[in-house]
C-alpha cells in the first residue's frame, strides 16, 4: 500500500467516525451530570431521519441540523424529566424510547427512503491541510469534522478548567454535596441532558447528511449502542471517548479492506470483528491511570492525571431529592 491510500483511509475513517464522536461526547455530558440517557440508538435514528427530511424539503442544511438537534434534546429531556419529576426509572424510560423512536423513524421516514439529498460541503483549511501526512487526513474534511475537533477540546476545557465544568462533575459525583454548595442539582441535570441530547441529535443528522447520505430503514445501524459503550470504556473522558470512536471507525474500515484479501473467511466475521476487537482495544486504553502515573517522573504526574483522570460518576443514575 502506498502512502496516498493510507492517508485516504485515515481521512475517511475520521470522517465516518465523526457522528460517533458527537454521540459519545453528548452522552458523556449527560452522564457526567448523573443522568443515563439510554434512548441514544432511537434518538439517533429519528434525528438522522428528521435532519435529512428537513434538509431535503427546505433545501437548507442548517434547518436540517437544527431540527435534528431539537429532536435529540427533546427525547433526552423526556428521560431526565421523567426521572427527576415523575420518579420513573431512567433505564426503563430510555429503553422504551429507543424502541419507540426507531419505529417512529421508520414510519415517518417512509416517504424519504433512498432519495438523493443535500450533503455538507468539504473545506480544506488553508495552511493546516498542507502539513505532511496529517494535513490531508485531518484538515481536508467537511465542516462538521472540524466542529467535532473543537467540541472534544472544548468539552475537555469545560470539564477540567472552568467553574461550571467543576460544578457539572460534582453533580454527577455527589449531588448532595453539590446541593449543599448552592448548586441547583436537578435544574443543571436538565440543562446538561438537553445539551447532551442535542449533540446526539447532531450525530444522527451528521450521519445522514455527511457519512451515509440519505435515509433508509435502520439507517444508522446500532450507532447509539456503540456510543454508549464507548462512553463507558472511555471512562467519561472526552479525549478517550473520541479516541474510542476513531478506533471503532478504524476497525470497521479494516474489516472492509481485509474482506477481499481473504475471500474464504465468511463476511460475518469481518462484520462482527470490530465489536470484539473494540472491547480488547478499549480495555487496553482504559488502563489504570494511577499505574501510568507511578512510572513517570513526579513532575509529569499532574499532567498525566489531567489528561487521563476518569471514573464512573458516583451519582450516575441516582435520583437526587432535596429535603
Amino acid at each position, binding site marked *: 500500500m502506498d502512502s496516498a491510500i493510507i492517508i485516504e483511509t485515515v481521512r475517511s475513517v475520521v470522517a465516518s467516525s465523526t457522528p460517533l464522536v458527537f454521540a459519545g461526547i453528548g452522552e458523556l455530558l449527560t452522564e457526567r451530570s448523573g443522568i443515563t440517557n439510554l434512548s441514544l440508538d432511537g434518538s439517533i435514528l429519528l434525528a438522522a431521519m428528521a435532519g435529512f427530511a428537513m434538509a431535503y424539503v427546505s433545501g437548507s442544511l442548517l434547518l436540517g441540523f437544527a431540527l435534528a438537534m431539537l429532536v435529540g434534546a427533546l427525547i433526552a429531556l423526556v428521560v431526565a424529566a421523567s426521572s427527576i419529576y415523575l420518579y420513573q426509572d431512567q433505564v426503563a424510560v430510555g429503553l422504551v424510547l429507543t424502541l419507540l423512536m426507531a419505529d417512529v423513524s421508520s414510519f415517518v421516514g417512509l416517504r424519504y427512503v433512498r432519495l438523493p439529498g443535500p450533503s455538507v460541503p468539504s473545506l480544506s483549511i488553508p495552511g493546516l491541510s498542507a502539513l505532511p501526512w496529517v494535513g490531508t487526513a485531518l484538515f481536508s474534511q467537511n465542516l462538521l469534522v472540524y466542529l467535532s475537533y473543537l467540541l472534544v477540546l472544548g468539552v475537555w476545557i469545560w470539564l477540567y*478548567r*472552568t*467553574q*461550571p465544568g*467543576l*460544578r457539572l*462533575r*460534582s453533580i454527577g*459525583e*455527589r449531588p*448532595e*454535596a*453539590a*446541593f*449543599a*454548595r*448552592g*448548586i*441547583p442539582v436537578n435544574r443543571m441535570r436538565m440543562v446538561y441532558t438537553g445539551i447532551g441530547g442535542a449533540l446526539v441529535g447532531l450525530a444522527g443528522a451528521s450521519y445522514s447528511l455527511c457519512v451515509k447520505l440519505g435515509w433508509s430503514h435502520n439507517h444508522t445501524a446500532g450507532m447509539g449502542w456503540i456510543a454508549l459503550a464507548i462512553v463507558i470504556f472511555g471512562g467519561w473522558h472526552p479525549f478517550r471517548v473520541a479516541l474510542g470512536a476513531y478506533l471503532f471507525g478504524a476497525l470497521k474500515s479494516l474489516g472492509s479492506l481485509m474482506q477481499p484479501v481473504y475471500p474464504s473467511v465468511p463476511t460475518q466475521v469481518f462484520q462482527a470483528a470490530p465489536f470484539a476487537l473494540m472491547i480488547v482495544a478499549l480495555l487496553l486504553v482504559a488502563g489504570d491511570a494511577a499505574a501510568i502515573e507511578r512510572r513517570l517522573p513526579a513532575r509529569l504526574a*499532574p499532567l498525566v*492525571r489531567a489528561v487521563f483522570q476518569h*471514573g464512573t*460518576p*458516583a451519582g450516575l443514575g441516582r435520583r437526587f431529592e*432535596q*429535603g
Partner: protein
Amino acid sequence: MKIEIQGINKSFGAVQANADVSVTVASGTIHGLLGENGAGKTTLMRILSGYLQADSGEIRVDGGRLELHSPADAIGQGIGMLHQDPLDVPALSVLDNFALGLHRGFWQRRGRIQRTFFNLCRRFGVQLQPEDRVGNLTVGERQQLELVRLLALGVRVVILDEPTTGISEPQKRLLFETLHRLAEEGLTVIFVSHKLEDVEMLCSVATVLRAGQVVGELRAPFDRERLVEMMFGRAVVAPPFASRCTTREALDIQSLVVESSRMRMAPASLKACAGEVIGLAGLEGSGQRLFMEACAGIRKAQSGHLVIDGVDLTNGRYRDYLDQGVAYVPASRLEEGLVRGLSVREHFVLARQRAGFLVDWEAAEQVASARIAEYSVVGTTGSRVEELSGGNQQRALLSLLPDSLKLLILDHPTRGLDLGSGIWVWQQLHERCLQGTVILFASTDLDELVDNSDRLLVFSGGKVSQPVASAEMSREELGFMIGGVNL
C-alpha cells in the same frame, strides 16, 4: 448578624425532630447548641442552612424574615454550614473541592485559588495537599478542608456541626483562637458539640435541646452539672477505669510493616493479654489506620507476623479473620461501616446470616429489634441507616458486632456520641474485655485514650512507639510524643 429562629417544627414520618424550637443568636457571638444524640441539633442547623425545609416556623436575620428554599439562598445571605459527616465530593481533588461553589466566575483560575487555599491553610495550621483525592483523606482532614472552604467563602454566619471530632489539640486551639477573633470582627458562630470543655472554652451562650425541644439556655461561665442535667434529664458520671487484663497472651504482633501509597509505617510490635485495652494515639493519618486495617485483615502487611490466640493469621483471607473472631469498626460510619439505603433490619441479615440462601426475615427482625432496644438506638428496624442521627448510626454499628470476639478493633469508637452514650459505649466495650476480648482503638481524644485503656501505642508520621502504660502518662507527655518528640 442577629439570627432569630422562631417556632420551627420539622417531622420525618413519625419522628418529630424539631418541636416549636425558638433560639436567638446575637450578632458576633459564639453560640453553643447542645443536646444528646438525636435531640434534633443537626436538623435545626440544616434548616437554618437551607438544606432542609421546615414544616412551619420562620427565621429572621437582623429583624427581616428570610426565605430559605435551598442552600444557595442561605449562602447568598452569608450563612454557611460545616456538616457533621463531611459533605464533599470524594472523587475530586482537595483543590477542586475547595474551588467548588467558591466563585461565580467562568475560568477556574487554579493559581489564584491555590494561593488562597495555602494562605488559609497556613493561617489555621492545616496541612493538606491540593492534588490529593478527598476520598483518601481522613474524616478529620475532610472537616478541615470544609472549614477552610467556608472561611474562604466569606460567610457572616458559620454553623459548625461537631467540628472538633477530627482535629488535634493544637489544631483545635488554633481553630478556637480564630473563631474568637472572627467573632470579634462580627462573625456569628453557632457551634454544635458534645464536648462540654469545648463549649466552655468557646461559647458565651449555650442552648440545650432535648427530644426536639428547647430545654433552656445558659450563659458563660457554665455550670457543668447543670448543663449535663439539662441535656440528659439526669446526672451522668463515668465510672473509673478498671483493668480487665488477664495474664493469658491473646495477641502477638511482631514487626508488622504496612504500606500505602501515602506512607510506609515503621515496624510495629505489640503483645497483648486477653481482656486488655490498647489505645492508638496520634494525629489522624499517622499510620494508626494502616495498622488497624492490617490487624483486621483488610490490608496486606508487607512483612511481620500477626498471631491471635496461637493462630498465625498473617496475610490470611479476610474470612479467616472473621472466623477467628476479629472485628473492625471503621471511623466513617456511612461510607465504610454501614450500607446507605439499607434498613437496620437488612444490616442484621448481612452481618448475621452469612450462610443459607433464603433470608430469614423473622429471625432478622427479632435480633434487630432486640439489639436496637439493647443499644437504645432511636429508630425502628425498618429505618434506613442514613435516616438515623449521627450518634444513633454509631450505636447501630456497634449493635451489629457479634457477641463473642477475640480481637475488636475500633477507629474512633465514640466519635459523634454524646457524653452519656460515650460512657455507655465504653461500659459495653469493657464488658467485652471480661470475656477476654482484646480491644485496639484509635482516638484523637487524649482523655478518652488515657481514661479507657491499659496501654498506649503512640503513632507519629508513620513511626510507632513502644507500648506505654496509660496510667504512667501525663497528658502533656502524650502530647509531646504525638508531636514526634521522644518517640
